[in-house]
């Protein structure tokens, strides 16, 4: 009797949750910048129409995306933290890493510019100036690709941000958009990828302060999750997506995405 009830419950639950979508789909663990900027909405329909494979995107910070992929909760990883990606492959969680595209990070801040860094092209010098002025800085603080990049630059500047945490250095622990909302609200500086920045609709009195430093280069990579570690991985469909993304069609689709007349991502697969 009890077992019958459980069975009935499981069946009802399955019917309640039944997805009406296609059988053939892959889950891509990706980063907020590719989604919030609108890039994926722009390029995915072409692949889906051509291949018949539906691409389901889970957009989280790079750290969380890698963690989820390590747990086997995705077929493809599309993120932007090269060192962490190479580690992911070296540990056997991923098959192989391919460059996909790049853009750059920009340092944004309030028009009032209390640290006096506007117009500079040296991100490390700018961060040093922010630290000595003790001007508010909004950090992602979430182990995302942008957060990892930001921490590298603080290290180069010789600033111990952990000591300033809660003071002028404020870790939001949230996505890029939430962090920019906060920076706009409290007149703080922040490091952001340019794509999210251009697409962001609530800039307030924030402006680009520092850009064009080679160290602000932001590379995106794509990796198939290793089916030997997680037999559930849809290796064939996932590889098809990767081949498309780094092939001529995918690369052209990436290059064709513009917002306000500006190209947001630059394809550079080899």
């Amino acid at each position, binding site marked *: 009797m009890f077992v019958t009830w459980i069975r009935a419950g499981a069946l009802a639950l399955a019917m*309640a*949750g039944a*997805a009406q*979508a296609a059988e053939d789909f892959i889950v891509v663990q990706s980063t907020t910048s590719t989604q919030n900027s609108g890039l994926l*909405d722009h390029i995915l329909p072409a692949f889906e129409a051509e291949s018949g494979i539906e691409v389901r995107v889970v957009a989280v910070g790079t750290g969380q995306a890698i963690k989820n992929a390590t*747990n086997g909760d995705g077929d493809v990883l599309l993120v932007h933290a090269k060192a962490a990606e190479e580690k992911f492959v070296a540990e056997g969680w991923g098959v192989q890493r391919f460059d996909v595209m790049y853009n750059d990070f920009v340092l944004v801040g309030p028009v009032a510019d209390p640290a006096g860094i506007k117009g500079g092209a040296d991100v490390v010098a700018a961060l040093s100036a922010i630290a000595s002025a003790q001007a508010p800085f909004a950090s992602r603080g979430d182990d995302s690709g942008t957060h990892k990049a930001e921490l590298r630059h603080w290290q180069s500047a010789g600033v111990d941000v952990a000591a300033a945490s809660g003071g002028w250095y404020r870790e939001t622990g949230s996505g890029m958009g939430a962090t920019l*909302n906060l920076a706009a609200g409290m007149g703080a500086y922040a490091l952001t990828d340019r794509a999210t920045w251009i*697409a962001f609709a609530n800039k307030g009195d924030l402006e680009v302060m520092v850009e064009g430093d080679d160290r602000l280069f932001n590379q995106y990579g794509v990796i198939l999750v290793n089916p030997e570690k997680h037999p559930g991985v849809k290796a064939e469909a996932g590889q098809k997506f990767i081949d498309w993304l780094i092939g001529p069609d995918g690369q052209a689709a990436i290059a064709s995405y513009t917002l306000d007349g500006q190209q947001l991502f630059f394809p550079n697969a080899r």
Partner: protein
Amino acid sequence: MQEFAQEFRDAFALILAGDAELLAIVLLSLRVSLFAVFFAAVIGMPLGAALAVGRFPGRGALVVLVNALMGLPPVVVGLLVYLMLSRSGPLGVLQLLYTPTAMIIAQVVLVTPIIAALSRQVIEMLDAEYAEQMRSLGLSRFATVPVLLWDGRIALLTALLAGFGRAIAEVGAVIIVGGNINHVTRVMTTTIALETSKGNLALALALGAVLIAIAVTVNALVSLLGQRAEVREAMRNA
């Protein structure tokens, strides 16, 4: 602020113009939360009633626990359900992560304690009123449970509404186990979170207004049903 008000009006007009995509999101929100409340009621009401009429050691502690679980943080529930449903988790083979079913499961966990705790309160009051009468009819304590649940059905609607309110409004659990995947697991609250993170504050707020309107509509419908049932009852008793 004036500019924002204009933006808000524009966004609202856009929504009212009847966007098919938005309609699908609203329907998914309703489907997930209504099913969650249904399953939570199936578990929570008998549980609450048993707690109300049962006399066993540890009952007091259990009542406190169920009451406390009403305040379960959604993000913690989301994380627990994620760990269960992840490919690396004990239920990974079911492949439920990032599906509406996973979202229903998370909301059932959130809502069951609310319905159980509020049902217990309702049934306990009814039990105090009718216990002797029913015992004189020779009913055992647990045999009175279905009778009491039926008798308290109108008051129990409030418990269901409280559960529905919790389910339709939460974002922390569904965004983790659903993944906010476009056309698959994107619901009202995760859409609002997404638009906020894009800086589209006016659109996010307008979507919030729609969510509130839905909640008001559901509550109004249920309260109307409750009133009609009450009237029918009064006429029968007259």
